[in-house]
């Protein structure tokens, strides 16, 4: 469990009995929580009539401290081979909190246990003992299984996952293709779901693009969002200022982003590792600052509005189309349905993402792809073998940037407006997180990571700030539990002597 990893036992100077050790660790964790929370949570600053004032929230701080103390105690017992404690303690507390929450009695005798003002925080507090209880149950089940001489379900599940892995990709593609035809409920709800899937697909595409740079070529790029921005603004400006069609702008957006990648990459690609990371981060910020300040061209902080949507081979799909132009629904003799446009865009992005995927899988078998991977493993050896590192890195940069450019123009076409706020560093971090959490170099892993990181929070958009908090916690926890990513695959595509590895997806 994470909590015990966090506050795990230290090698004490004196020999302590295990229970003393546990108590000490738990007390330390509790006191630490109280101290950490003491000023930031304990004292809330309130601006009243220009002057800053404060109110105290000490109940919350102490509840948090006691909670962490108990959790740490229970978890260390669980780790010491007594999952019963976790099941009873966690389950009991979860049940108690559940009753309090359901009763909604603010003045009740037990209401002091949950003093947090926001119901979201109260309900998430409930999750912690519940998770401890669930972990205890799973530990007990596997212990029981082991005693009965059978393999634990977690081990068997691992074997099953290993076997079905090659099929996951195919199943996901079939699901993605069939999605608009599945019963998704009412029209507005279906629209929302398909829209979220479009967003997720855009991020999958970005993830696959960045994977070429980070996963295959091993170049840490923290400013990837700059290319995404270039693609989005290229489409937006060409279509709004010059009235060019989406289909003309799409390749141009990719081309411009790739050119940008080359121009950016050229001076900095001889830098290594983390230096490259900070320079790309700087470039990403520079692009954003230019977008904010170059008002006559980019529209400044307000961005660009009324970006035309993608048309179906020249047939517009909006409700209000000018006189004399045949719309999509009219042409095919369908009843107008605003969902058509959403579904069409969804399929477009799906097609583009699959193209990117196909390209990546194929290019890994070409000399170029091999050179990328070789460069990632050992640059000095590559030089010795006559691979030009600069050119090879530049192609990786350009290809990755091109994919981001495509994704950017889809983003602009989906949103209808863009502003620099969509291209902040956080976006780069999110895309990088998708690639790393997916397991560097794993195409299926990136899909799963994008579903977890984008799809799930997108469903809870109303919770805005709590969503980002949970996002940060999730990033840390996934990394601690699975440092290699959800699906760790960093093997080179080929190895000498046919050692373990071979073809990976």
């Amino acid at each position: 469990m994470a909590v015990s990893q966090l506050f795990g036992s230290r090698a004490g100077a004196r020999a302590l009995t295990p229970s003393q050790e546990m108590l000490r660790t738990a007390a330390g964790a509790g006191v630490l929580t109280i101290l950490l929370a003491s000023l930031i949570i304990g004292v809330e600053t309130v601006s009243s009539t220009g002057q800053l004032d404060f109110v105290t929230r000490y109940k919350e701080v102490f509840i948090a401290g006691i909670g962490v103390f108990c959790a740490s105690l229970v978890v260390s017992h669980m780790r010491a081979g007594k999952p019963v404690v976790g099941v009873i303690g966690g389950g009991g507390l979860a049940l108690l909190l559940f009753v309090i929450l359901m009763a909604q009695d603010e003045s009740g005798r037990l209401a002091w246990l949950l003093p947090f003002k926001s119901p979201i925080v109260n309900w998430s507090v409930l999750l912690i003992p519940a998770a401890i209880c669930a972990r205890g149950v799973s530990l007990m089940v596997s212990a029981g299984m082991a005693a009965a001489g059978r393999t634990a379900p977690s081990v068997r599940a691992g074997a099953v996952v290993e076997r079905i892995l090659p099929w996951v990709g195919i199943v996901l593609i079939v699901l993605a293709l069939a999605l608009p035809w599945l019963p998704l409920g009412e029209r507005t709800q279906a629209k929302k779901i398909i829209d979220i899937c479009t967003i997720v697909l855009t991020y999958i595409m970005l993830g696959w693009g960045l994977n070429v740079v980070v996963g295959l070529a091993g170049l840490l790029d923290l400013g990837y969002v700059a290319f995404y921005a270039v693609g989005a603004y290229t489409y937006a400006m060409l279509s709004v200022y010059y009235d060019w069609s989406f289909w003309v702008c799409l390749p141009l957006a990719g081309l411009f982003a790739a050119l940008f990648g080359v121009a950016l990459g050229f001076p900095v690609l001889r830098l290594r590792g983390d230096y490259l990371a900070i320079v790309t981060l700087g470039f990403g910020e520079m692009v954003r600052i230019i977008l904010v300040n170059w008002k006559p061209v980019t529209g400044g902080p307000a961005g660009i509005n009324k970006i035309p949507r993608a048309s179906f081979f020249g047939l517009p799909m909006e409700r209000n189309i000018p006189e004399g132009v045949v719309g999509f629904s009219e042409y095919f003799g369908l009843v107008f349905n605003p969902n058509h446009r959403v579904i069409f865009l969804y399929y477009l992005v799906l097609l583009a993402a699959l193209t990117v995927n196909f390209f990546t899988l194929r290019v890994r078998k070409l000399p170029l792809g091999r050179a990328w991977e070789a460069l990632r493993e050992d640059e000095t050896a590559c030089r010795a073998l006559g691979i030009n590192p600069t050119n090879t890195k530049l192609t990786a940069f350009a290809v990755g940037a091109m994919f981001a450019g495509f994704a950017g123009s889809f983003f602009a076409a989906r949103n209808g407006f863009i502003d620099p706020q969509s291209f902040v560093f956080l976006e780069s971090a999110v895309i990088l997180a998708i690639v790393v959490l997916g397991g560097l170099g794993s195409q299926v892993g990136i899909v799963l990571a994008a579903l977890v990181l984008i799809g799930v929070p997108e469903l809870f958009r109303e919770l805005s700030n709590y969503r980002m908090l949970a996002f940060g916690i999730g990033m840390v926890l996934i990394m601690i539990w699975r440092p290699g990513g959800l699906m760790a695959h960093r093997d080179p595509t080929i190895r000498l002597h046919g050692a373990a590895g071979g073809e990976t997806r």
Partner: protein
Amino acid sequence: MSSDVVTFTQQLINGLTLGSVYGLIAIGYTMVYGIIGMINFAHGDIYMIGAFHSLIAILVLGFFGITWVPLALVFVLVFAVGLTALYGWAVERIAYRPLRGSSRLAPLISAIGMSILLQNFVLLAQGARGKPLPHVTEDQFGKVPLFSGDGITAQITHEQIMIILVTIALMIGFTLAIKRTSLGRQQRACEQDMKMAALVGVNIDRTIALTFIMGAALACIAGLMVTLYYGFIDFYIGFVAGIKAFSAAVVGGIGSLPGAMLGGLLIGFIEVFFSGYVSVDYKDVAAFGVLVLVLIFRPTGLLGRPEIEKV
């Protein structure tokens, strides 16, 4: 004296102040990078938390009637710096220590996650609106006019004097600590070869934890000084200051303490002079442009040691 000289001197003083703050934050980046080779992305947010701790401590002290600046500052330093150092320790313990020895990217992602977490934690706990510094301390700070010409006066505020003096003192103290004390020797040993250091009896975990604590304490002092100097903070100040300070550490040569200070001053001067003489809007572009230029011509930074490639 002509007004050009006066303006120039004023910019010089402002640049020195800003550069000192960047330098103090940059030391945290450079020490951590030197020892465990990771970009501690959450360091900028530790600085932000330090600023919030200082602001809240000043507020609470004002409530208890302690408004005499020297005494208040001592109290704030003890409380805010102590608590912020705890944050530094906790972040390392929670997010980085379990990942030591895994791939290079895993701690980076964990650090970015930590940064998002801390930012939103403060946003939720303290609200999105910027916080002005309470007026209690304001009247006790004054300005020292240096010289004037053509109706403009170059002046240095007491806050600026304090920032510059504190930075110089801390720099001297830290350089001595790294050179002379046993902790400093342990840190340098870890920097050179962690496995070997462990073999000769250096407690690696303790050394790394102390490095984070020291970095966080310095970041908190920077946060306190910024709170006093600008009198206004919000939950987002950590990000921009963080990437600029990291750029400063890289410009100066990562792993080198004087380098961090030099880089901080350089970035501070460029930012101030660029906004003074060219354009305020593009000052960050200029700062990052210098970063790129320095790295192109000196890939290991101004004072960094050239990397020896081992095959």
